[in-house]
């Protein structure tokens, strides 16, 4: 169960502001043609080492017209493997679910590649998708204190319902900070206090 803390609340606020700024930048620079933006939406921006959280991979700008849809994607996400590690990937039903889509994952240290294709007809696909689409959910676990970004690489490829490449005009990365476990903080604090007391005694 994720623990709420003052640090976490601050981190979430920072994340929201950063995400909003990125979106403003993306929207301002977006061409008028149909184009996608990818953003990663972590459930927690601050994570205690040893705890897990999820990050949803979303795309915006799909459009909600009768033929607007994502029919396939191939995207690689990367992070600092010293800070977090990937536990699992779950594809959403956006492309048709297990019965009407195919997907695959490939992973290395600090990266994962997600590929999927819908088997639905163009019309059925468009009917099931809106302008804002969650395509996958990553579960990550904090390893050691530090800050890392979780970001798509520049080779992300998205196709529309007909298999035509969709231009990607912006990305919003997720920033995740891993903090030490509380027990470690208590030990560290106690050690520092003992050291200070010892210093004062020696000075007297």
């Amino acid at each position, binding site marked *: 169960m994720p623990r709420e803390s003052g640090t976490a609340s601050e981190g979430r606020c920072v994340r929201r502001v950063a995400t909003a700024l990125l979106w403003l930048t993306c929207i301002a620079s977006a061409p008028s043609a149909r184009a996608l933006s990818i953003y990663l939406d972590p459930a927690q921006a601050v994570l205690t080492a040893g705890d897990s959280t999820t990050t949803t991979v979303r795309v915006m700008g799909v459009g909600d017209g009768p033929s607007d849809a994502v*029919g*396939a*994607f*191939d995207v690689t996400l990367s992070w600092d493997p010293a800070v977090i590690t*990937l*536990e*699992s*990937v*779950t*594809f959403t*039903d956006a*492309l*048709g*679910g*297990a*019965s*009407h*889509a*195919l*997907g*695959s*994952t*490939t*992973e*290395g*240290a*600090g*990266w*994962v590649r997600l*590929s*999927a*294709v*819908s*088997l*639905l*007809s*163009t019309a059925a696909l468009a009917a099931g998708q809106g302008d804002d689409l969650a395509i996958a959910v990553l*579960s990550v676990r904090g390893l050691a204190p530090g800050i890392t970004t979780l970001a798509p690489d520049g080779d992300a*490829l998205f*196709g529309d*319902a*007909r*298999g*035509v*490449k969709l231009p990607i005009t912006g990305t919003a990365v997720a920033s995740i900070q891993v903090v030490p476990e509380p027990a470690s903080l208590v030990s560290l604090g106690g050690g520092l206090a003992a050291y200070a007391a010892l210093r004062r005694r020696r000075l007297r």
Partner: protein
Amino acid sequence: VKRLAALAIALACAAPARAGYLLVLDGDPGDYIVGDQHLEYTDADGHFSISGDARTVHVVVAAGNASWYLDFASAGTRTLVPGPYDHATRFPFQSPQGNGLSVTGGGRGCNESVGRFGVLELELDPNGVPRHFAADFEQHCENGEPASHGTVYYDSEGPPFAAPLDSDGDGVPDSIDDCPDVADPAQRDVDADGIGDACDDVYSITYLTIDSPAGDYIGQGKRLTYVPREGSFHASHGGDSVYAAFDGGSDWWGLTISPPTGHTFAPGAYEGAQRFAGPSNPGIDFSGSGRGCDATAGRFDLRELVYGAGDDVDSLAVDFQQSCEAFGPPLLGSFRIDASPQFGVLADRDGDGTVDTLDNCPDVPNPGQADSDGDGVGDACDSLADATFVRFDSEAGDYIGQGRHELYTGRNSSIQLEGNYGGGVSLSVTQGIDDWWLDFAPPSGERMHVGAFGSATRFPFQDPSVPGLDVSGEGRGCNTSTGRFDVLEYDVDAHGRLLRFAADFEQHCEGGVHALRGKVRYAASYFAEPGDRDGDGVPDADDDCPNAPDSDQIDADHDGRGDACTQICDVDGNGVVDRRDVGAVLAAVDTATTSVDDVRDADRDGTVTVLDARACALHCAIDGCAETSLVAAPEPSALALAAAASVALAALRRRGTR
């Protein structure tokens, strides 16, 4: 040496060893008699006995606690001879003009059954009792789908068996020949009494047809036709009421009609009929198979009525209409019992002597009604399906075909052929949500013929001096078009009805450079070879692409797989794009293409990407990309979505870093 040679010759000429005694039983899942199992008995396992005569054979096999009883009977007074016997109903309750079959055992028997059997060998002893017998059989208990199949030998020589007997040499085995001693390959039997016209002295019409609409209680919404081989017909009268009946064992039907009371029956139309005749209304009551009406409303046309001796009716022809309980949807029926031919012969579109409602291939003449695979569809119609297909090869940029390559066959699609008003040929193709229309027409004043038709423009707006061509579908059509077509086969019957058509075509929409090319084959005679799934004239065993028509067998890269099998997205080369193929493309993302024709590179950009996988998903033969039953390559490595992606991830995690 001479003695040894004589001995060798004697041994060689000695009677061949007989295969002996054998009973093999195979039951389909759900079969009541044998069950889902395979049983096999020889005379080492049990005791075989036989009895019967020239028309019936009974075999009993007693093995341990199990005893099996098999009965085979030919129709009427005909003798059993080697050959096929169809439409066999439960012995000994078969109709006088039908074949009988019964397979029972283990304490189990059918109340009703249908089936068929083939006599492979039959020889009688001097007393007329069978002594050598072999047959195979198939029986469906209670008329259900599951069957008991089997083979029985009684002191039989075993295979190879002699060819079925064909006394008159007309190509129709005696066992199913409606006139076995007079050559009548057409097997015409206009009065449908089971006796071919070639040897039918009594030319009269006997049948019952029932056309029951949905909601009708009596006919239960069925369309039924009964002819003499399926049961007995009888007509009688009592006073002025006439009673006509058909008794087919489990199915029986009866019609009572009367003129208004006080009137005498005479041919004519009788309106306002009710169940019981009154002074001002005639009577009608049609019932059967355990169902009857308390009240009726209807009418009938009495077309022929000839009274015989006593209560007999010698000839009856009546068409009737009845609403059960006076308000139900009307059932239509026709009774003919020894009626004169002018009062209606059942329709027989292909003129092969078997009326349409009983014909297993009503539009293609097939006098013997052969049905080798027992699917209820005659071999002639199976061949039609095999020799019928429409293929599209659309170039990228072609508006109509959208760059797709499609194959619609008579097996997986509805392909209809008819004449169009341009004096040519029109085809419609329907497969799921796919609809296509193709029109071919000669220049005005010309007849369609085998040959080349160049400079075609869009049908039906072509200039009178040029041919017309139009291929459209899925909501797309050209405003204008140019093209050509080559008619390879065009065959019509004496009535001008289209029988066969084969053509290749090329169409350019709006004068563009991108072509839609294709092939059309409808009942193409030279594509009707057995064992040729794609109907391209090359037997499957020799075909370098057995599921896609490629009569030219071109294999440019000499890999053993014909170029036709390099259909875009058809990675496993089985002629159909399905889920497996899309998975294979997805698994090959980032794989270098093997050639410019790599089927995985759907968009031909030189790289296999997820965009190709998506394009291939849209090429699937079935909406939703369901897998087809055709044999194909192994499963792709791509994973089904949500199918434990994390498990796969864990396995992949052990791989190195990029």
